[in-house]
């Protein structure tokens, strides 16, 4: 596995039809066992074991079950799903079909973010091709199982990338995350068992069935298997989508993309964390720095307070607004950043803000609120002397 370069390597070599054929030759139990054996974890960032999720959904009782592909790729700095969907959509559809058969679902939905509307026509064409080829529809590969996929568009709300908010949105509601438990595998779309997986996760599933769980598990580290796509942007020579095995160090990654002189890297997007140069030896994996794949490189000249401010502005606007810590907390953190900008934030109040950040991590209702202070907290902890005691306001 030597894929340290720009573009899609592993995925472009997978035959989605072969994956689907290999899958339907197995029983449902064997299919889920295969996914479990690959140790695949969710590629959206949270890293929940896919096999476990599918097993729960397969065991859950329901009148209908659903397979949802989360293509609401809204995390700042993430664009690998766009590339997968435009270059190898059949992998995703094959992965969804496999998921559907495995859990006993006849209906898949791709929730495509509104910003990617220009991809819709070609995705519809790909679906039509698959139906014509008997890869979707009432009898997949002439077997007695049916599965079809519908595309539903998002309407400009980052929070809908949270799986229960996504389901609410599909039900015609505001994209407000639900209380969990119950989880979607038990009570999802329309109250029925539902699996929600990331675009890349479904592509990985196709890869696993085409090449085997053992092959997949042989890539990466013990706990973080398989290849991973990274969306690289910011101050580097060659931004773009990269594929690396899990477990790569930040330094190695920066070398590959031409960003060696970075002073910090934001890994995991706005909800991820800021890693300073002193920690570039850390690895990107579920056991160390977990990420959905966003890597933003900050060169030596960057003002880290401006970076923190941009992220906080993002969350103030994209919070769904239902729970107190996230709705009010993000606004308070942004206000604090403005105080820092203007050089009028006391050390004591900064301390209050750090505690507030922790409270938001602990007490928010969903992943958005729980991760929204991450960037601020990590930037403050690593660049405090850059932030305090400013003598002039921001350039407006």
């Amino acid at each position: 596995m030597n894929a340290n370069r720009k573009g899609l390597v592993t995925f472009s070599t997978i035959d989605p039809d072969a994956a689907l054929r290999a899958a339907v030759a197995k029983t449902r139990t064997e299919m889920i066992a295969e996914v479990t054996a690959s140790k695949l974890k969710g590629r959206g960032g949270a890293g929940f074991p896919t096999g476990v999720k599918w097993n729960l959904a397969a065991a859950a009782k329901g009148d209908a079950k659903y397979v949802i592909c989360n293509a609401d790729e809204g995390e700042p700095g993430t664009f690998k799903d766009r590339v997968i969907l435009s270059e190898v959509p059949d992998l995703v559809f094959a992965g969804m079909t496999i998921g559907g058969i495995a859990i006993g679902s006849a209906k898949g939905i791709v929730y495509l973010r509104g910003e990617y509307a220009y991809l819709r026509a070609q995705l519809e064409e790909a679906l039509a091709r698959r139906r014509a080829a008997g890869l979707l529809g009432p009898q997949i590969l002439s077997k007695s199982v049916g599965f079809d996929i519908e595309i539903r568009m998002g309407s400009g709300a980052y929070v809908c990338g949270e799986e229960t908010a996504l389901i609410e949105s599909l039900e015609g509601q505001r994209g407000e995350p639900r209380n969990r438990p119950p989880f979607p595998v038990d009570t999802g779309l329309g109250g029925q068992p539902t699996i929600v997986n990331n675009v890349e996760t479904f592509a990985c599933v196709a890869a696993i069935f085409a090449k085997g769980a053992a092959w997949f598990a042989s890539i990466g580290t013990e706990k973080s298997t398989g290849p991973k796509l990274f969306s690289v942007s910011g101050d580097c020579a060659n931004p773009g989508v990269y594929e690396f095995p899990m477990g790569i160090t930040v330094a190695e990654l920066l070398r590959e993309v031409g960003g060696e002189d970075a002073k910090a890297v934001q890994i995991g997007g706005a909800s991820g964390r800021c890693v300073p140069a002193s920690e570039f030896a850390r690895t990107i994996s579920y056991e160390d720095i977990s990420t959905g794949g966003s890597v933003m490189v900050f060169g030596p000249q960057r003002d880290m307070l401006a970076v923190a401010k941009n992220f906080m502005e993002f969350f103030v606007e994209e919070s769904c607004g239902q729970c107190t810590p996230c709705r009010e907390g993000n606004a308070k953190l942004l206000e604090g950043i403005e105080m820092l900008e203007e050089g009028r934030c006391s050390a004591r109040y900064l301390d209050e803000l750090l505690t507030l950040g922790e409270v938001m991590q602990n007490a928010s209702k969903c992943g958005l609120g729980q991760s929204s202070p991450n960037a601020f907290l990590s930037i403050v902890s690593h660049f405090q002397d850059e932030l305090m005691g400013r003598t002039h306001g921001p350039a407006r």
Partner: protein
Amino acid sequence: MLVTEQQRLKDDIGRWVQRYGAQRSALIPVLQEIQAKYSQVSEYAMQEAADHLGIHPVEVYSVVTFYAFLAEAYQGKFVIRLCRTISCDMAGKTRVARQLENDLGITFGQTTKDGKFTLEWANCIGMCDQGPALLVNDHVFTSVTSEKVHDILELCRKSFGPLAVHDNRHEEARQ
């Protein structure tokens, strides 16, 4: 609103509800159709949609105000959404923004008097490796410079093709 136009809107909503189903889960697709064709989800449209789906108008209003791509106020024929998230910011979105404002004579959140252009901010549109990036309706423009702004606007002004209204090819294909 003219009576004939209200009737047209009413008929359209009826048709869309028939296509997506008369249940709450059809709400957002129906609103997206309304937005695409009428450049807004008007008060009348919200009441009509609510009535068809058996929900309250305020619930529709609640949903419309939640999603960035749905608007209760009229939006221009071309909605320009400039990404303001960090990668595009570092790539120079500020100057692009300034030039857009200069060339259109409006600020962000406004619509030109002729009803052609609306200027909006977008949060990360997934073009971080090619920033600054912006969307004009459903079409994406990348590596935009302040120089290129004029060309993009001219393209809009001259174009009544795919840029002018939403891409409804798949809609027609399904009929």
